[in-house]
């Protein structure tokens, strides 16, 4: 018995020795860090994101790379924990990697953004850029904005602005129920919904504004009954993960037929888990064409090529392609990997993404401006499904870029 332990200690000693030895010197490729969950409950999302980054990087590399150098994605596992993210950030900085992508969880995003800002202010010699491809808390590009943070996804208020435009046009909707997880994002969605609906359709009644504890609700039936009792014509929710799946299932079981406007009810197992329960009920607000019924050619090729490599994964974040290519272009323009120069090059950069949309990185707050799509969960006319389930998203409406753009509220301090 003690021997097994002995062995373990031996391994440990070896590991410590290996760790203490100075790391290999940075070689030729341009290294880009990817900090997201690669273990634990959210690993599926993180791993799929990593694959999409590598897929996009391979395309860039096949086309000759950047400045004659290859792009290498270096993954770091943060377990969606702010604390662990900061440890990984220190590793990124210690390894001399100048760029880092992160997207899962706004809490983590705030932690990283704040730490990057402090690090860059204190250590002008080793600055890093934080490229946020998915965390949607508006504050990140508003009151918490800074020069070394860029966001490539539409933030929650932009999505809500688009969503409320759609609702505004639908005269049949008179009563709306808002339900969400009790934390910053759920509250931000609820507040934005109430505010924007009040401006655009004062006649709509908010018949319920409910927050439930995140990840703790075992059975959503009581909530569904409340929604039914309220007589709502539509539901808005920012729920994700198991909270989204279970809400959809309970709605189906309880016989609730009204549309659900959601942010995260697709892919990474969610589409398959919702399955038939969500058909024509679940709608998704997102930044890219859903691929159905008729995908633009570049997007269709991109998805098809990815599917060939990763049959069990989906392209569910086309913005990853946008983000990495815009970074590559910025490095090219700056002619170096210096964080400040690349950041300057990114400001105001324009790009045509896979959906064929013209997007632009607004210099005032480093928020990418783009059109927004609303799609419905269905199994009819689906060419590119999610989770190999036969279910997927089909385009319902598109809100053009200028309609989805909100005024910038950032006072950007640039390094002199």
């Amino acid at each position: 018995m003690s021997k097994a332990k002995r062995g373990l200690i031996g391994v440990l000693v070896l590991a410590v020795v290996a760790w203490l030895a100075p790391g290999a010197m940075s070689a030729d490729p341009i290294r880009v860090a990817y900090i997201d969950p690669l273990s634990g409950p959210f690993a599926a999302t993180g791993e799929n994101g990593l694959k999409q980054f590598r897929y996009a990087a391979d395309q860039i590399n096949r086309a000759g790379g950047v400045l004659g150098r290859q792009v290498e994605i270096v993954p770091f596992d943060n377990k969606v924990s702010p604390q662990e993210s900061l440890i990984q950030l220190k590793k990124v900085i210690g390894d001399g990697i100048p760029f880092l992508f992160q997207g899962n969880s706004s809490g983590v995003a705030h932690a990283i953004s704040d730490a990057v800002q402090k690090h860059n202010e204190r250590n002008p010699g080793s600055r890093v850029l934080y490229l946020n491809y998915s965390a949607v808390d508006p504050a990140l590009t508003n009151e918490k904005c800074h020069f070394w943070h860029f966001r490539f996804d539409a933030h929650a208020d932009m999505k809500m602005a688009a969503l409320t435009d759609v609702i505004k046009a639908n005269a049949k909707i008179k009563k709306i129920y808002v339900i969400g997880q009790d934390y910053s994002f759920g509250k931000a969605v609820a507040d934005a919904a109430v505010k924007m609906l009040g401006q655009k359709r004062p006649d709509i009644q908010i018949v319920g504004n409910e927050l439930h504890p995140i990840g703790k609700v075992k059975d959503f039936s009581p909530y569904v009954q409340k929604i039914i009792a309220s007589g709502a014509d539509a539901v808005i929710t920012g729920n994700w993960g198991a909270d989204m799946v279970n809400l959809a299932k309970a709605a189906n079981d309880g016989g609730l037929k009204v549309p659900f406007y959601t942010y995260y009810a697709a892919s990474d197992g969610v589409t398959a888990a919702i399955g038939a329960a969500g058909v024509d009920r679940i709608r998704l607000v997102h930044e890219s064409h859903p691929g159905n019924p008729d995908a633009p050619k570049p997007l269709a090729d991109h998805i098809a090529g990815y599917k060939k490599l990763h049959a069990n994964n989906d392209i569910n974040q086309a913005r990853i392609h946008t983000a990495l290519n815009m970074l590559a272009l910025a490095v090219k323009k700056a002619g170096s990997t210096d964080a400040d120069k690349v950041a300057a090059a990114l400001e105001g950069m324009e790009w045509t993404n896979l959906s064929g949309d013209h997007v632009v990185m607004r210099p005032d707050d480093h928020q990418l401006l783009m059109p927004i799509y609303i799609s419905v969960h269905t199994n009819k006319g689906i060419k590119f499904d999610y989770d190999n389930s036969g279910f997927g998203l089909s385009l319902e409406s598109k809100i053009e870029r200028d309609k989805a753009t909100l005024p910038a509220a950032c006072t950007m301090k640039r390094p002199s």
Partner: protein
Amino acid sequence: MSAPAPATTRHVEVAATASWTHRLRRLGVWLAAGALLLALPHVVRNPVAVPVMNQMGIAVVFALSYNMLLGQGGMLSFGHAVYFGLGGFIAAHVLNLAGPGGLYLPVPVLPLVGGLGGLLFAALFGSFSTRRAGTVFAMISLGVGELIAASSLIFDGFFGGEEGVTTNRTRAPLLLGLEFTTDRQVYYLIAGWALVAAALMYSFSRTPVGRMANAVRDNAERAEFVGYSARWVRFVSFCAAGFFAGVAGGLFAINYEILTAENLGLNASGAVLLMTYIGGIGYFVGPILGAVVFTFLQSMLSDYTGIWLLYLGIMFLATVLFVPAGLAGLIAMHLPAWRAGRLRTLAAPYALTALVALVTAAGVIGLLELVHFVVSTSPSRTTMRLFWMTVPARTLAPWLGFAAAAAAGALGVRWAAPRAAAAFAAASRPPGAP
């Protein structure tokens, strides 16, 4: 009920005599520890080492405070992170008040603020939870832990919601011109505090109430019949543990400049239980070892494998099953052999056992990684990197190979382990015994 006979591996509370040599030797241990801590950042060249050592220092203080409950006081808590987290949040808020025109509060004093915060809440929750030990205490700690964790997501004003509370250590006034901008500067602060806190916690265990904590752990009824209220003894220990957990939280606030809900959640409470137990709850140094090893594995293992939590779980179970006295117990087990000068006789049988155990481990790890690869990647990908090799994961050969290694290793362990055990028994026999 008759008293159970302690297992021989269990720590004997050797009473230290107040002799000169003894005190000198103990002072020497602390001085050596201090010197080592001073030298470490100069010896270790890896750029990531300093941040990881900072994390270790915080974990050490936290785990030691946890062992004041579990090891010293016999109180199994599932909510100790509450005091770590609350202490940290309070420290972060206070740090935000400090600065030009604000509170005069230099950074090095901040852990004390965290400690007082932890103490405050420990006194509050301890007032009702320390009435009983055993299951009742454990369950109340679980309930309190869940309650605080849940309220941390509801009470935005204090906990800052999902983003948590951020702060900036460079805005605080300086004390003696000490700046804390780099990780290395923070390292010395954490190392200093960890050393002081460890010394204080050690001293606590030697005070009347600390000794009575052991007595109450052993036999609460008897303690009441020698004049001590078991509840008060537990309460004082609980408050002290809360204080030092808060100190650790304060150090965390300085190091990371952010506190979030996860710092006081159940996972954090579970982690401190794991690291303390792996290190060995019967020894003062146990939690230190556990915290260092655990933190190291936690932040490094994930670079190599996606299923590191599984390995950690296996390691934890193996510790509970085979080495309940923990890493420290394993070392202490060999003290008799060392005193008798027979440690050398163990080298060969141990090395042999370690070798076959390593083969087993490699086989098992290989199999697990293969399963992980096959389950988590697309069928189109056929090869994976494993142990510095490229392995065709979807063919039978590697599976058979690793299975064979595991089986052969296991057989080897069955053969070698009894020999190592016999060698151990022989080496540990007191001198003069036949």
